[in-house]
């Protein structure tokens, strides 16, 4: 309870008491041990040595093969199985390599940073676009340009994804897949209300009016809202971008997401719930996230990524829904967010060449196609944008389209706290604690601190 360097127990002495131990031992006789002094010293030595031998080294025995470690997170067991298969394929082609998949559970990014700092990072690891610029600017990742020169087929990725992993003209990551927002709608609810399905050309007003028309909260046991929203940054940000709000100033030194355009967008977003009462938060209806509330039939529409499709397929297979591009801004602007993940190599990797080969394999056209056809993720290669798969699965088209005008979900090297802080601001607006202007002003001043070097 009281301070000490290692957090072990410490003590301050108590005023009233003499040592209770005093006198206890004295009654016992001093039986002189025959143990010689050298034994004592030996014990000291043995224990100092034991520090350096026992159980301190994780990892264990090494084979003579080159060990290539790859880390990522697991979003679903199916995805993990697929990745393992691809890795196995690679390992079979490279018998000299011992490829180890080491998934990271829990807080992924902090753990990666810790490994980078201690020089124990895996040779290949997933990196989310949100934090990519931070690591790229820090110079802890390996630029891939020298490798890219020798592999022309590695330059055929969707430009907005490539952009997410480039810094100062160098490429640091090969995007593995991506996601964008699309508007999901529940066909049954629309049919019942006799309202035509949304399409990709909607404006904010159409979204707002339709949401109002679809809301029906008369029956408390059968609540139905037009939309389900989230109190976070990513769900709101597309609206701000559609309204031509900028996130950072051109130099990237200050956040300007409290501009009048941003405030307008947050006002619009908040009013959907606060004024119109035509939107719900998932927590109000017993859902964990907006897509969940949608899948459970509490809302007629929702803005989500393709992960919703997977979720519905698995948990609510009977839901009849459609997907289209998200609405345009008041001035007709299209904007979307691109969430993407890349494979990167740490600068300190001992086997950059092998790591590169592994990445090349994992992002090859074949494997990308396989992933697309498994329905698990959208492929990052431009060649696959016109794959026949999309004819069979028109719902994925809306997400694919978003990539052409979407911007990566990232906010510069100092922007990794952006979504925590902005998320809190959106929350404050929903709780009516602050006005949109006030909430954004406060958030921006907090964010600016993190943007400093």
């Amino acid at each position, binding site marked *: 309870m009281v301070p000490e360097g290692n957090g072990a127990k410490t003590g*301050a002495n108590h005023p*009233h008491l003499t040592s209770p131990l005093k006198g206890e031992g004295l009654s016992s006789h001093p039986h002189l041990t025959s143990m010689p002094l050298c034994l004592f010293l030996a014990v000291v030595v043995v224990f100092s040595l034991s520090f350096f031998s026992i159980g301190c080294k994780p990892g264990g025995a090494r084979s003579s093969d080159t060990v290539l470690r790859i880390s990522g997170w697991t979003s679903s067991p199916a995805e993990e199985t697929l990745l393992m298969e691809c890795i196995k394929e690679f390992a079979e082609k490279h018998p000299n390599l011992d490829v180890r998949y080491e998934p990271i559970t829990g807080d992924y990014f902090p753990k990666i940073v810790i490994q980078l700092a201690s020089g124990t990072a895996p040779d290949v690891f997933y990196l989310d676009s949100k934090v990519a610029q931070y690591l790229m600017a820090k110079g802890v990742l390996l630029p891939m340009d020298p490798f890219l020169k020798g592999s022309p087929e590695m330059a055929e990725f969707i430009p907005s994804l490539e952009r997410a992993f480039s810094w100062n003209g160098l490429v640091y990551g090969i995007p593995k897949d991506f996601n964008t927002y699309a508007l999901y709608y529940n066909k049954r609810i629309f049919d019942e209300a006799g309202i035509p399905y949304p399409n990709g050309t909607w404006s904010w007003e159409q979204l707002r009016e339709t949401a109002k028309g679809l809301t029906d909260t008369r029956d408390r046991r059968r609540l139905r809202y037009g939309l389900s929203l989230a109190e976070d940054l990513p769900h709101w940000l597309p609206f701000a971008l559609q309204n031509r709000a900028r996130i950072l100033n051109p130099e990237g030194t200050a956040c300007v997401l409290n501009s009048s355009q941003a405030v307008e967008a947050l006002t619009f977003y908040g009013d959907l719930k606060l004024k119109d009462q035509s939107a719900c938060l998932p927590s109000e209806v017993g859902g964990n996230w907006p897509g969940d509330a949608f899948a459970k039939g509490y809302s007629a529409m929702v803005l989500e990524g393709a992960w919703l499709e997977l979720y519905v397929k698995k948990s609510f297979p009977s839901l009849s829904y459609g997907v289209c591009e998200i609405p345009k801004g008041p001035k007709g602007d299209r904007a979307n967010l691109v969430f993407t993940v890349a494979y990167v190599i740490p600068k300190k990797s001992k086997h950059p060449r092998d790591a590169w080969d592994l990445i090349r394999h994992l992002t090859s056209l074949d494997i990308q196609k396989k992933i697309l056809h498994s329905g698990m993720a959208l492929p990052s290669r431009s060649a696959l944008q016109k794959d026949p798969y999309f004819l069979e699965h028109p719902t994925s088209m809306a997400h694919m389209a978003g990539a052409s005008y979407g911007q990566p979900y990232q906010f510069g090297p100092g922007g990794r706290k952006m979504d925590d802080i902005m998320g809190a601001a959106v929350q404050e607006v929903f709780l009516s604690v602050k006005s949109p202007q006030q909430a954004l002003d406060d958030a921006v001043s907090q964010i600016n601190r*993190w943007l400093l070097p």
Partner: protein
Amino acid sequence: MKKFSKARLEEALTAYLLLSPYLGVLVVFTFFSIIYAFYLSFHSYDLLSAPIHVGLRNYRTLLWDPDFRMAIKNTCIYTVWVVGLQTALALLIAVILDQKLKGKPFFRAAFYFPSVTCSVVISLIFMWMFSKLGMINYVLSLVKEAPLLGWVPDDLDWLRDKRFALQSIMSLNIWTTSGTFMVIFLAGLQSIPETVYEAARIDGAHPFRVFWKITLPLLRPTIFFVVVMGMIGCFQVFDQIYVMTNGGPLKSTLTVVYLIYSYAFRDFSMGYACAGAFLLFAVIFTATSLARKFLDVEPEY
């Protein structure tokens, strides 16, 4: 003379030999460490690149950081309630146990044992008890049946409710540490000489009066000690927050140490976190030195 000084030298060498392992730890992980922490608090450092000097910026921004303010506010509320209640409870039990009652060792053990248990385990147990279908709601639903108690809530999700999350963790802390302080009070009570009471008894004073006029004043240093120790413990609360709520919901259980931890090891803003840690250190250091000054506990040297 030469022999004497040789003996002295030998003794000194032996002393340093015996002290060497401890000194190694002390110098590196306490003294160097605290100086390094102080140095870092004037820098921006994220483990990945060398520290950048930023002067007083960390301290300045910290004072305006809404999260830090929130954490201080929560920590203060937490401290006031926990210290107040646990001290009162510990004193009450100690005074009762100090009467000549049977089964004292049993009760003492029963009250003390929560504090030997791991904070993580206790947190897990309380998380389970405070969950929506947990024991607490069940007990409350029984209480609710009683007349006049119909207003008692029995369907709260305690740890996910921003009105009650911090209070729930407070109750856990009081439950855990009251026993520890009870033992200290008990020792304090027993060190009051019987003769003091005898004099009062001859005067025929009422037991409550005796408690108020004699026991309490004599126990004042112990009470002071218990309060200071309790405060220090509360300022440092971390484990329970980390396991049970992660500072949520809506930052209602965000405490100073949890915030420092997450600044350092989630956001890798090490310098900024060090500045926070130093402010905390200043508070705790003041509290401990005050305690020492008032109690004069330094062993004679």
